[in-house]
């Protein structure tokens, strides 16, 4: 009796699991997968890709959101689980390649060139030219603090750093090249304490006064919303993070019509425009689909 029940439940589990397969699209095309990180710009770009591909081809795009970090997305692309993503050129310095293959540079062109060559070689990915916006690390402080102490650049912080609690994303403390340890070498001062934490919670921390500075991403509308100012990176320390659409080469060869759509996204959204779109999503709490559609229509990319 017990055995029957056990086999019955195992059968049920197997049945449910095999049920979760993929289907083809309504128009007889393929269903492609887009993977987005936890923050809003890749999610909005997912909608842009989805709506353009579905408008101009017979294919459909499914979006999976809130993948914890870009390396996981690259893994999924490598294994063919995802077909597209939005990645940032500085990702090329994120421990994917042997040190002798890659040269750290803060030059945007050199960075995206390396990303295009290396990701093509190792992961067989097509890294498109920049979408037009970038989203990089910056040191950000409350406006009031900046005005009272007349701060413009990161170097200006050196006098106050030893009393400052800084919030950063968890990886920043341990990163090579553009992480905290190299920051200390480059700028020549240390903060009192650097806490790794969830990006969205950093803003709560600085609004509540627990943090004195945070490593915000430049495109984030929470910077303005919380009356923060970005200090100029006067030593040119932070790596450039220009956003690009990334797609699997194999897919582009088989479906050139998709490649044409993705080509049209290159150089189409500026940093300012993206900040405005993220604001609609993060602050005004509208859906990414609605915001992307409105933008594409305004630009005449969608009817």
């Amino acid at each position, binding site marked *: 009796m017990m055995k029957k029940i056990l086999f019955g439940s195992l059968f049920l589990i197997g049945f449910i699991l095999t049920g979760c397969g993929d289907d083809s699209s309504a128009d007889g095309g393929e269903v492609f997968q887009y993977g987005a990180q936890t923050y809003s710009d890749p999610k909005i770009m997912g909608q842009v890709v989805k709506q353009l591909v579905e408008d101009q081809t017979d294919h459909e795009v499914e979006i999976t959101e809130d993948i*914890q*970090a*870009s*390396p*996981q997305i690259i893994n999924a692309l490598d294994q063919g689980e995802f077909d597209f993503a939005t990645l940032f050129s500085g990702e090329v310095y*994120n*421990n*994917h390649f042997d040190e002798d293959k890659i040269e750290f540079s803060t030059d945007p062109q050199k960075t995206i060139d390396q990303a295009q060559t290396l990701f093509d070689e190792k992961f067989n990915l097509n890294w498109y030219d920049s979408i037009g916006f970038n989203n990089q690390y910056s040191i950000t402080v409350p406006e009031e603090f900046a005005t009272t102490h007349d701060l413009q650049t990161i170097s200006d912080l050196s006098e106050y750093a030893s009393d400052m609690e800084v*919030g950063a*994303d*968890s*990886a920043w*403390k*341990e*990163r*090579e090249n553009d*992480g905290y340890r190299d920051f200390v070498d480059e700028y020549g001062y240390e903060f009192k304490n650097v*806490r*790794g*934490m*969830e990006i969205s*919670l950093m803003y*709560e*921390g600085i609004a*509540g006064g*627990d*943090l004195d500075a945070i490593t915000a991403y430049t495109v984030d509308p929470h910077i303005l919303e919380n009356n923060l100012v970005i200090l100029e990176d006067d030593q040119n320390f932070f790596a450039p993070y220009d956003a690009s659409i990334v797609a699997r080469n194999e897919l582009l060869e088989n479906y050139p019509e998709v490649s044409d759509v993705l080509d049209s996204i290159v150089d189409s959204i500026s940093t300012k425009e993206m900040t405005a779109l993220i604001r609609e999503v993060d602050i005004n709490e509208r859906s990414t689909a609605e915001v992307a559609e409105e933008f594409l229509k305004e630009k005449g990319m969608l009817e």
Partner: protein
Amino acid sequence: MELVSDYIEFWQEKNNVIWEYTYQHIAISFIAILFAILLTVPLAIYMTKMKNNFIKNSIFNIANVFQTIPTIALFAIMIPFLGIGFKPAVIALFLYALLPLLRNTYAGVQAIEPDIIESAKGMGYSPMQRIFKIEIPVALPYIMSGIRTTTVYVISWTTLAAVVGAGGLGGLVLSGIGFNDQHMIFTGTILAILMALLLDFFFASVEQKLLKR
């Protein structure tokens, strides 16, 4: 072999950082568990003597509610009240630890045969003597199993403390995920597992010792 030597090199390079994360992890989970035990064990014993069912149920329901809030949400909810870092992390974990400890201790004391209590009364034991000489020793396997499961849970949940800036081994794992470093992910995970196993083993031997007496 290269894998092993790479990993040894990683430890040599990072051992300061690794111990810092480990130390934070121990501090957060230890304090949360300790406070939770100190509150719940006496409270649960007191509750078994309580006549008022309404208060008793309310206490269980409150502890239950904390248990049902998703961990990551509870950490986030704490921030406006308690700021970031150590404090919200410890308090959130403390709240999570309440229910399993309360339930087990209560069930253990409740399950004692009324005859045993009656005979203790007959032998002239005072209420305090009954608690320390009869109830706690008899209920000990229940209490200890509550402490053991809770400890394992809390150590695992403490990895989420990194989200609110309290550090801990979760910080190492998240750094590894963000910076694409498998060594960091592996180290953070394995240390958390070891810590949970060691403490579980420790409490098991404490239980053995206490039962023998």
